[in-house]
């Protein structure tokens, strides 16, 4: 019988490594596992290799998951364009309105109307505060300044809420996706706040219930709307020295509380 060469030894080592790796991954046949068990019982070197490899794979398996950034989900959702279902394809008028020349014409017409609107508004006797508020709301920073946000995913409902300071008002932007009935409740008891408006509700089946210290919005499916709140403090100075405290949000899917959060408006 020939003496084993160095090459044979390398092949044996590679075979042992294959068995060790396969065993760790649970991919060995019964016969292969039995072969490895014999090798482990008979060789300190194989046992050492096994210990090292298990330590490595335990380390790799134990690497914590990274949390995607908060904005990512909505950034994706807002950019995705899906094919239009056959029963939702635009009719002739919609196609005509969507034509580039028509869009240009409509944009010009909107510009003219806006100019007329501003001229007419400007001809009224506005107080300096009103004018400042209009500038802040319409021109200065239409998106507002993000103060706080919350996001959740449950089996029945996913969503997020963003609290912004917007032209002297507080804006709460709500995105919800639900299979069944979704109830969003906003509580601001004792916070010197009142509801100004709920914007973006284009679904007629959505129900809004308002009281002095809370707003409840009930709907289903995909929902996106904005609640605007304003301070009822007697003066701006008072409002600044006593900023509103946390605003309580609750989200119910089919009457079951799936998420609650407090958004901090004091930043």
């Amino acid at each position, binding site marked *: 019988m020939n003496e084993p060469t160095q090459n044979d030894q390398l092949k044996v080592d590679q075979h042992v490594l*294959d068995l060790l790796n396969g065993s760790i991954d649970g*991919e060995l046949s019964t016969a292969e596992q039995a072969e490895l068990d014999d090798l482990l019982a008979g060789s300190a070197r194989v046992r050492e290799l096994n210990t090292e490899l298990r330590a*490595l794979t335990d380390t*790799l398996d134990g690497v*914590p998951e990274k949390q995607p950034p908060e904005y990512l*989900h909505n*950034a994706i959702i807002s*950019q995705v364009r899906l094919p239009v279902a056959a029963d939702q394809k635009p009719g002739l008028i919609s196609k005509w309105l969507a034509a580039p020349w028509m869009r240009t014409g409509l944009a010009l017409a909107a510009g003219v109307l806006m100019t007329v609107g501003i001229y007419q508004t400007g001809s009224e006797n506005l107080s300096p505060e009103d004018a400042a508020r209009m500038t802040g709301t319409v021109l200065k920073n239409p998106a507002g300044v993000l103060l706080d946000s919350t996001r959740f995913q449950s089996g029945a409902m996913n969503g997020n809420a963003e609290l912004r300071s917007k032209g002297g008002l507080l804006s709460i932007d709500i995105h919800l996706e639900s299979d069944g009935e979704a109830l969003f409740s906003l509580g601001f008891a004792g916070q010197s706040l009142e509801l100004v408006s709920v914007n973006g509700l284009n679904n007629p089946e959505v129900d809004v219930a308002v009281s002095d210290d809370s707003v409840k919005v009930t709907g289903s499916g*995909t929902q996106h709307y904005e609640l605007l709140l304003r301070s009822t403090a007697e003066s701006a100075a008072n409002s600044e020295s006593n900023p509103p405290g946390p605003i309580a949000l609750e989200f119910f899917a089919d009457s079951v509380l799936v998420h609650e959060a407090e958004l901090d408006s004091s930043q």
Partner: protein
Amino acid sequence: MHKDRDADLVNDCKRGDRRAMAQLVSQYERPVYNAAYRILGNADDAADTTQTVFLKVFEHIGDYDPKFRFFSWIYRISINESLNQVKKRRHQEPLAESQASPWRSPEEHMESEKLSDRVQGALMELNGEYRTVVVLKHMSGCSYQQISDILQIPEKTVKSRLYTARQLMKKSLRTAEF
């Protein structure tokens, strides 16, 4: 991972159902982001790549063949997109030290973060083929068969790449006082 549920959601997306689209994004956002992060080693690049992956997925949702698992399809797009980014980055200006060597973390990092950074460092020393199989096996929890489906290579090649990658990582981590 949930073949029938994914297939239903994909069919709903093909009909323009945005709620189904949002559910698929919720389900796969984290795994896609994590795979991209581990291959690219950078949070900003991983977020950009994740967005690109989902835009491509839904742009081509009509081409998706339901014979295959949606899971394998989206992972394949994620891996290819991440590796493309790695290639592009090679041709661009060198990264800042903090990006090129994210594993050289400050001492005040939490223990898990240190581990994560050290492993990330060893991963970044591997070439794309080896890095991909380690990520799919250990960070994404895929079986040999799933990795084979995603990368469209034989299982034998998966094993061979994985075993070699582990040996290389062992050496690298040992050098870094693992």
